[in-house]
């Protein structure tokens, strides 16, 4: 049997993890507030949120490194592990700080999980070599930990966690300590591993970009609660409230009053203008509610002078030019409008930026959503 014996794509989509009503408090601080989540076998699930959102605590609850203050139940592979200590749960963690044992060689580090399980020396060695091959460091078995670079350490930590063939691999901001270029490389490698092994990955990160690139499903957390969960496209294009839109990097957020929601489309009064967009806030509230219109900078376009009246399916605002920020691949242009500054992203460097007097974007390219989440 080899590490990647259960080669993906697996047809078994049974539930591999289930947490019911988990609450965790540090003193009076509620880090995780009555959260329930599930994960399917082979899923790449991301817990996304800013620091202090409770995502790491939730991961530690799964690992068993933290004892929940209150919990309905937690089960891994259908087995109730609520009272099972971390050492006997079929999941392992890749820590942001690597947590490699400094007094052991690379090989000993990787073999540790097998050693404590009483696996024979020859089998340990064999499986460690296999894991080293998997993370593409086949010749580092005898190295000392301090001889490795940051990226290599993270791979060894990954190999150490994988060698025991866990049902779930927990990754706690594993790329947080790496530099930009290495991070992108490792993202690809992690995805590759995930595909190869078919193990459930639960990945904690604060980077929406990382979450979007890698996940099958994202759970966005804030103040210990789940704000929104769904596939990356959902969170990216259909933010459930203003916080999600902001967190997912939507540059232009306009406050307005909801006029009506008809089907998918919502019409909103922003200042003196009537605009429309895709309703993303779930069950529609009553007309007159304060809502948020969210549009990404790359969807905002510049129009020639005049502009004319509102066309169907287009939101248009007269504007004056503000500052220009050079970003290398593109230019971000701030535009002053009657409802506040907007940012437009311009990819065409040769575009004549002098000759415009309005901005516009398609209603289908913008989301209308709640100001705040339920209870948040």
């Amino acid at each position: 049997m080899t590490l990647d014996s259960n080669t993906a794509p697996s047809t078994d989509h049974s539930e591999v993890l289930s947490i019911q009503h988990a609450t965790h408090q540090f003193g009076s601080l509620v880090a995780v507030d009555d959260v329930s989540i599930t994960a399917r076998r082979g899923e790449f699930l991301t817990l996304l949120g800013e620091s202090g959102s409770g995502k790491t605590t939730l991961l530690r609850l799964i690992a068993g490194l933290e004892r929940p203050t209150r919990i309905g139940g937690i089960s891994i592979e259908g087995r109730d592990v609520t009272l099972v200590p971390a050492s006997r749960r079929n999941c392992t963690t890749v820590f942001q700080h690597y947590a490699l044992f400094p007094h052991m060689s690379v090989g000993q580090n990787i073999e540790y999980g097998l050693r404590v399980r009483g696996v024979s020396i020859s089998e340990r060695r064999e499986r460690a070599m296999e894991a080293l091959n998997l993370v593409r460091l086949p010749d580092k078995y005898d190295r000392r930990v301090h001889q490795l670079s940051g990226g290599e350490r993270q791979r060894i930590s990954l190999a150490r966690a994988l060698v025991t063939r866990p049902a779930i691999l927990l990754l706690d901001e594993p790329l947080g300590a790496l530099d930009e270029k290495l991070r992108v490389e490792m993202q690809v490698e992690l995805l590759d591993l995930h595909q190869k092994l078919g193990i459930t990955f639960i990945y904690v990160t604060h980077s929406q970009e990382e979450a979007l690139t890698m996940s099958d499903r994202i759970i966005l957390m804030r103040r210990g609660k789940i704000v929104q969960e769904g596939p990356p496209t959902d969170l990216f294009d259909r933010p459930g409230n203003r916080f999600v839109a902001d967190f997912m990097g939507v540059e232009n957020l306009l406050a307005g009053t909801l006029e009506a929601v008809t089907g998918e489309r919502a019409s909103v009064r922003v200042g003196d203008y009537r605009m429309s967009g895709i309703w993303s806030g779930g069950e529609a509230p009553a007309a007159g509610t304060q809502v948020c219109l969210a549009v990404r900078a790359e969807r905002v376009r510049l129009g020639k002078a005049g502009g004319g009246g509102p066309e169907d399916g287009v939101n248009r605002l007269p504007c004056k030019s503000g500052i220009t920020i050079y970003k290398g691949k593109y230019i971000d242009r701030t535009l002053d409008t009657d409802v506040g500054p907007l940012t437009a992203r311009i990819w065409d460097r040769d575009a004549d930026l002098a000759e415009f007097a309005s901005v516009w974007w398609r209603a289908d390219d913008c989301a209308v959503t709640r100001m705040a989440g339920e209870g948040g």
Partner: protein
Amino acid sequence: MTMENTSQARFRLPFWRRLMDWAPTGTGIIFGYSVLFILYFPIVMLMLLSFSGDPLTGIPGDWTITWYEDVIFADIAQRDGEAYGSNFRVGDPLLLSIMLACITAVACVIAVLIVGPILPRIKWRGPFLVGFLMPLMIPGIIGGVGLFMWYRLVIDVKMGIWSLVLAHFVWAFPFALLAMLVVASRFDIRLMEAAKDLGAKPWQRFWQIEMPLLKPGIYAAGFFGFLLSFNELPFSIFMRAGQDTLPLYLWIQSGAHNTTVPLIYAMSTIITVGSIGLTFLAIKLAFGGGQKNDVRQ
């Protein structure tokens, strides 16, 4: 005159300027060597005198090892009931001191293993630390009197070997703890979590992760326990009750008989060399190959 003072300057600075620049360093060097001289001169003299024919004159020379022979053979001869030129008997005090030192060392290691790893992690560590380290600041004589009164008048411990062990432990523990804390405070507790996460049970985590990483602290604690007990005098004065430790015996002998003074020189030299040897051994055990442990992650 130029103020240029870089390495590329063509001009040599005038003598007084160079003197001024050099003055702080020079003063430091002279002062440092003076201190070293004051520290080591008596010890070196003592060693030289222990090999001298007539050490009581204070002038080394006329080299001999007769005093060393006397240290050893006086005891052996008297043990066999023979008369010897000197009644200097160092055997029993030496054995007692070694035994006390070993017990103290073991006690220190165990105590420090219990307290050391926990202390840096608890919330109110400040007061605990002060409490544990206070004995460092109490003069030995006062501590000795205090313990004496406590043992004799309050808890009625019989004076003897065990009162000595207790006193030596009280004396050595803070030093041993300090040595352990240096290591324990750098110990990354997250490694224990990682081990737990990988499936290690509590005793596996202790033996396979915590112990190896705390090893320098353990050796240092044992070493301090041994050496501090072995050299301890003030507490022993009050706790002895008929038992003479080696320092106590040497102290009494040096005050009593002129004829034994040369033997004290020889004995002191042996102890000094032994202590230095032990220190090097301890450092080697604690930090030799320790380079692999100082990984910053």
